[in-house]
């Protein structure tokens, strides 16, 4: 395995709920290499989404570390973590999480505008349109999410995640809300992106999704149960 781009060491997360402490993630050690396609498999409540949130810098671990290119993510300041989310990771959610007021192309380009990395709005828009073409939505750029099907929405979400050319694409149950055919099309898209060299982490409870990965990490009740090549 080449040098890991992301690594977790003894990662744990405890939630306080109703006066009780709930240990959702407990001592997870794993690593993701550049260009790798990792699937995190587990049942509902196994802690896989929590693991993804921690890797994505959306949440803070109770204990342990998330290392990005060797640097402890949670030793960073909040603006640095914001910058990490902007530049280094792209997030895809089960429920797409598109902004309903924006058209498809605007939903994609907004990530680029937030990045504010010196590109002009025109350049960002061109990139957004190219990405929509890449995911097969060149004819739907001006449609708002309400006018798109589930599969189309997820493609827009994937395009948005790719707008800033992230080092890692993190997808949380990307086919969980789609029918079998549409889910397969989305998986094909992930496969194509991976073939182009995109590092990605797919969280899923679906064995079919996991089968398409290079490596599968299985979580059971917050603990790493297995870490095997697919």
């Amino acid at each position, binding site marked *: 395995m080449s040098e890991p781009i992301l690594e977790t060491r003894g990662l744990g997360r405890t939630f306080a709920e109703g006066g009780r402490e709930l240990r959702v993630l407990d001592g997870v050690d794993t690593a993701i290499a550049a260009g790798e396609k990792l699937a995190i498999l587990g049942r509902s409540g196994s802690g896989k989404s929590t693991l993804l949130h921690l890797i994505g810098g*959306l949440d803070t671990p109770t204990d342990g570390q998330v290392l990005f290119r060797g640097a402890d993510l949670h030793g960073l300041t909040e603006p640095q973590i914001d910058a990490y*989310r*902007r530049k280094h990771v792209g997030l895809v959610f089960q429920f797409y999480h*598109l902004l309903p007021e924006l058209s498809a192309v605007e939903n994609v380009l907004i990530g680029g505008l937030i*990045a504010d990395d010196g590109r002009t709005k025109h350049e960002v828009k061109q990139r957004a349109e190219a990405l929509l073409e890449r995911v097969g939505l060149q004819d739907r750029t001006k449609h708002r999410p309400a006018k798109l099907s589930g599969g189309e929405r997820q493609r827009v979400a994937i395009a948005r995640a790719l707008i800033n050319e992230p080092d890692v694409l993190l997808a949380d149950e990307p086919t969980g809300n789609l029918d079998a055919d549409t889910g397969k099309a989305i998986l094909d898209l992930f496969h194509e992106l991976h073939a182009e060299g995109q590092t990605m982490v797919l969280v899923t409870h679906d064995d079919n999704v996991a089968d398409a990965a290079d490596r599968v990490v299985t979580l059971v009740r917050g603990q790493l149960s297995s870490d095997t090549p697919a």
Partner: protein
Amino acid sequence: MYKLLLILKYLRRKLAPLFAALAVMLCTAMVIIVMSVMGGFLDQFRESARNLTGDVIVEGSLQGFEQYEELLAVIEALPEIERGTPLIETFGLINFRDSAKPVRVQGVDMAELEAIVGYKHTLVWDTEELLELPRDLFGEDNERYRQIEEQLTRDHPIDPASADRETSDEPIGPPEALIGIEVNPFQFRDENGQYDIDRTWARAPITLTVVPLTSGGATSLEQERKEFVVVNEFKSGLFDIDGQYVFVPFETLQKMLAMDERQAREITEDFNPETGEGGREITIPGRANRLILKVAPGVDVIDARNAVQRTIATFYDERESFQLAKPRALTWEDVHSQIIGAVKNEKNLVSFLFGVISLVAIFMVATTFYTLIQDKTRDIGILRAIGATRKGILGLFVGYGLAIGVLGAVGGTALGIGVVRALNLVQYFLGHYLGVTSLLIGSAVLGGLLGLIVAILIGFRQRRMVYWIKRLPIAGATLLFLPSLVVVLSMSQVNAWLNGNIRFVMWDPATYFFDRIPDRIDPLEITLIAAGMIVSCVIGSLIPALIASSLEPVETLRYE
């Protein structure tokens, strides 16, 4: 840049912020209308009062003060004062075509009055209007007509030289008088606040009766009566002034009040009351009871007043021969302090009201935003997840508040100015033209306007503004026009009732203090009101924006 994109989208796609902007717009317009009317009322009063009073007034008792010319010369030498003139003001009674009326009479040199306060713009009738009757009566070639024409085309309507004329037997009549338009008992404002020249008064003599006051303040048993010819009427726009004041030549009034310089005999031991011989011959100095002064450019009236007051004190200290009380210096605002104070208080109350309205705007925007943030929690989470900072979210919602404020304030300013400008016109139509045609046209215009507003709202949301503007105003006008037509055609009784009973008059120009609604627009005041509203909206959005920026992305995404 993403903030601007989202602000524009939220404004376009959400109705609640548009309603908030509409409310801000109405608040802004309301405050502008009220402040403009109140401010206009105050300004109109101040202008009228100042026109009549001068910047600084040296005011003595009613019987006046002596050595007024010397005092004026000393005061005019002050750098704070540009020029001044003596004036006599007293109470009198005019008899105008057998109708008596109490008035306030001012004796003044009109050329000086023009130079000090500028009264000419208040003259109601131009020379042509005034010459109409003499032309009809005498013809243009007549000598009398030419004398009258010469009299009416002078620079100032009251000729100081007319002071010595005694009776109407003289070719161009007795001394001249200028009367307030409401002093004329035969002059009425019509329902629109307009006057028609009453040709019958032109050149009709008025008899003025005044009561002379001795230096000691005692009234003479003999009233002084004198005929005057009215040469024009003035209209300051302030009912109290237009309904009370009469201007006559200074010397004429001074003589009538026995305030001119006179020779008399002081009673000594050798004075014989039967023959009037003996005693010591003395000169009783002439008196005026006011000096009106124009302040030099750039000088504050209060500074000028204080300088004049000091000069009066020194003038009186240096001389010991005064029998009458020394006058005092007042600014024009001091003179009219009671009514100006009352109007100022009302304006202050309106300013306080503006403060309350600003609070309403703050809470309204805060409520709208709080609701919006509840609705947008997931969006905030998404934005944070894709890298937006807390500061960015804060900026987004504060910018959103700013946008609503700007939208509301700009719209409100336009609406406010429009309403203020159209106020007199609107009340004119509301009050006087509720006829069939107006009802139909009004319904169509109202329908068209409503259609236009709806078209703009729908067009804004759908980005098809032209499409809807082409259709909805016409539909609205037709929709309201047709029912109105049915009402008018089938219910002539209703129409008659409307005409007969509903004469809604916001501001009756025939009866009110001013003859029209003051519609002054003060750009600074309007800018401050609009800025205040924008700031209120920003403040209103601040707390919800802080709440939004404090949301944790992972928490908000779990919302689903």
